[in-house]
């Protein structure tokens, strides 16, 4: 039994310490929201598995750990670390955050089209409240989500990306969050806000990584990203979770889409002991398209929970969900795909697919589609498969000289890469495929030929 009061009190104390500083930094305008979120968090407490939305994921280890609010930027991250973790190939801008705080010395604001703003959300909150005020914390609701409430109350820093009308940002904007091990376990609350005006286009790569992936020190990363996709805009978002082995990652991506906007989001989870990805999209005007892709590869005692909610509020919108998982050891995966079709949302076309590959008899997956359809002229399909490696295929490969381990790797790689086919940044797709390969034995035999 978790003492909820104790576990929330710690965060109340962190909050009180920060209040004064925030007022001084010109963020008094946002304080009431933070206060409301803090008190909501106190009321909600950490969810238990009795909570329907948390049925398959116990956050008890997070609730009972005395995480400390991450203090200022840690100097332990070097440009070489950034180089190693950063997206290969070109970016239009790269913002680096260390333990949730902006690190200008490691960032590169690059070369952006006129009117595009990419920078620290925290700084912008002090300097330009008018830009943020209509959006910040207005899309990701915190009234029934303890982790979003906690982030909203304690949010540190993250990327502010603003793309004005008729503007195409050709190369991706990278938001790189790096955690460093500390003497005390840290809680990190990154917050990103992405505002894309009409007829514009931008690609974001949000990476959560660490300088010491195998380190046993736990930390708790609780990022929230809000994306507002204006009329006829195109927004691609990639989230790559490469947390340290002992880390907890509970993240929310909240997307608000307007007329004929096209948003695709990928989430690839490869590191962390517990990873929960909440991905929520609201299709709030006609003609919107939302494509969500996910892939995770886990083993040992790792746990990944992808929790999706796509809300079709208006007619003629399409959504796709394509999620795959590979589980070894005693790993556990969960997938919840809720699709809500409002009475007005005729001609909705929603497809959902969740496929899991179990490599061990002790791995387990819970897959739950939830369709709530209140309109009568809609197309909604969902499918879930949970399978094992095909013995016939293994034999076929072995009969051609490929050893058993390599044959298994080849099939796992083939299964996984389908979830990466939609990655439109070539160097990122290669990086993600390397991440897949790195988890497979005999990978040297599996390098691409062309």
């Amino acid at each position, binding site marked *: 039994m978790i003492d909820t009061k104790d576990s929330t009190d710690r965060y109340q104390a962190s909050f009180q310490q920060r209040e004064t500083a925030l007022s001084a930094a010109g963020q008094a305008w946002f304080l009431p929201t933070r206060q409301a979120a803090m008190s909501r968090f106190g009321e909600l407490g950490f969810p238990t598995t009795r909570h329907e939305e948390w049925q398959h994921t116990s956050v008890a280890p997070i609730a009972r750990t005395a995480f400390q609010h991450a203090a200022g930027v840690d100097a332990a991250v070097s440009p070489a670390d950034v180089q190693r973790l950063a997206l290969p190939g070109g970016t239009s801008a790269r913002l680096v955050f260390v333990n949730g705080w902006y690190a200008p010395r490691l960032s590169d604001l690059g070369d952006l089209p006129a009117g595009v703003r990419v920078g620290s959300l925290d700084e912008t909150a002090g300097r330009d409240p008018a830009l943020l005020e209509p959006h910040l914390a207005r899309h990701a609701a915190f009234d029934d989500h303890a982790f979003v409430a906690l982030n909203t109350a304690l949010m540190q820093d993250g990327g502010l990306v603003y793309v004005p009308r008729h503007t195409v940002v050709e190369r991706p904007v990278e938001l790189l969050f790096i955690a460093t091990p500390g003497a005390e376990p840290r809680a990190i609350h990154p917050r990103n806000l992405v505002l894309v005006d009409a007829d514009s286009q931008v690609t974001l790569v949000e990476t959560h990584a660490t300088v010491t992936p195998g380190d046993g020190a736990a930390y708790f990363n609780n990022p929230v990203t809000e994306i507002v996709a204006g009329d006829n805009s195109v927004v691609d978002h990639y989230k790559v979770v490469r947390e340290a082995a002992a880390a907890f990652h509970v993240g929310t991506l909240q997307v608000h889409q307007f007329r004929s906007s096209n948003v695709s989001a990928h989430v690839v989870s490869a590191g962390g002991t517990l990873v929960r990805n909440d991905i929520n999209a609201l299709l709030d005007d006609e003609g919107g398209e939302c494509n969500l892709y996910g892939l995770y590869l886990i083993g040992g005692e790792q746990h990944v929970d992808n929790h999706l909610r796509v809300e079709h509020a208006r007619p003629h919108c399409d959504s796709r969900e394509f999620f795959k998982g590979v589980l070894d050891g005693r790993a556990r995966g969960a997938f919840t795909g809720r699709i809500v079709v409002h009475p007005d949302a005729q001609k909705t076309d929603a497809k959902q697919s969740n496929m899991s590959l179990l490599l061990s008899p002790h791995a387990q997956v819970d897959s739950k589609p939830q369709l709530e359809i209140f309109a009568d002229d809609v197309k909604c399909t969902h499918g879930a498969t949970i399978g094992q490696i095909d013995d016939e295929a293994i034999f076929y*490969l072995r*009969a051609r*000289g490929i050893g058993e381990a390599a044959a298994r790797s080849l099939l796992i*790689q083939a299964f996984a890469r389908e979830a990466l086919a939609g990655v439109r940044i070539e160097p990122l797709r290669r990086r993600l495929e390397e991440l897949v390969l790195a988890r497979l034995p005999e990978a040297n035999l*599996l390098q691409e*030929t*062309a």
Partner: protein
Amino acid sequence: MLDIRNLHASVEGHEILRGLNLKIGPGEVHSIMGPNGSGKSTLAQVLAGRDTYQVTAGEVLYQGRNLLEMEPDERACAGVFLAFQYPVEIPGVNMSHFLRAAVNAVRKSRGEEELDAVDFLELARARTEIVGLDERFLGRSVNEGFSGGEKKRNEVYQMAVLEPTLAVLDETDSGLDIDALRIVAQGVNRLRQADRSFLVVTHYQRLLNYIVPDFVHVLVDGRIVKSGDKSLALHLEEQGYAWLEKETGGEVTAGV
């Protein structure tokens, strides 16, 4: 090359091969014919190392080595090749990726250097001509969406790339139209050489008009009941298998 002695094999406790003897010398082409259920495919699968079949007695020597003790991939690396009766579809694994892994596994086991992407593609493209496949098929997933004829041609193509010492063709002719049959047979004939042996398992005599065997064996009830030269195949075509089953009572094992 290959010496099968008193081979017994079963699947799920049901004995299918019941004392099979067969010797294949270097460069020879042997054909095994027989009615449905006689054990032809079981023999092919056992030689390749499929673990759904249990060998309960007998031995198989391949180049003097105990074949039955080798893993399927070790057999392949040692030069044993099975052209599958039902090639497996492997979605998401493209042909060139798969074949390069196979070629390099074989090369590695021989202590040869692995082929890089450029050298591999040169080899892979050059061999497509043997079975008349468009080289674009190298970019497709293994057997996925292939027609029956394409699958069989793909088996012969893989054989051409991997250059085995002993090739076992399991009903590679079944389901092929005459054009595809000719292409497959020509492919095999072009690969015939003094140090490469073939075991051609077929249900129909038709294939043997194109691949002319040195020896023909008739398999009935898990044993070779009759052996002869290519004229035996013609005889079978005219008479069917019934006379053999009567003649041997399913008991007699005929020598070569």
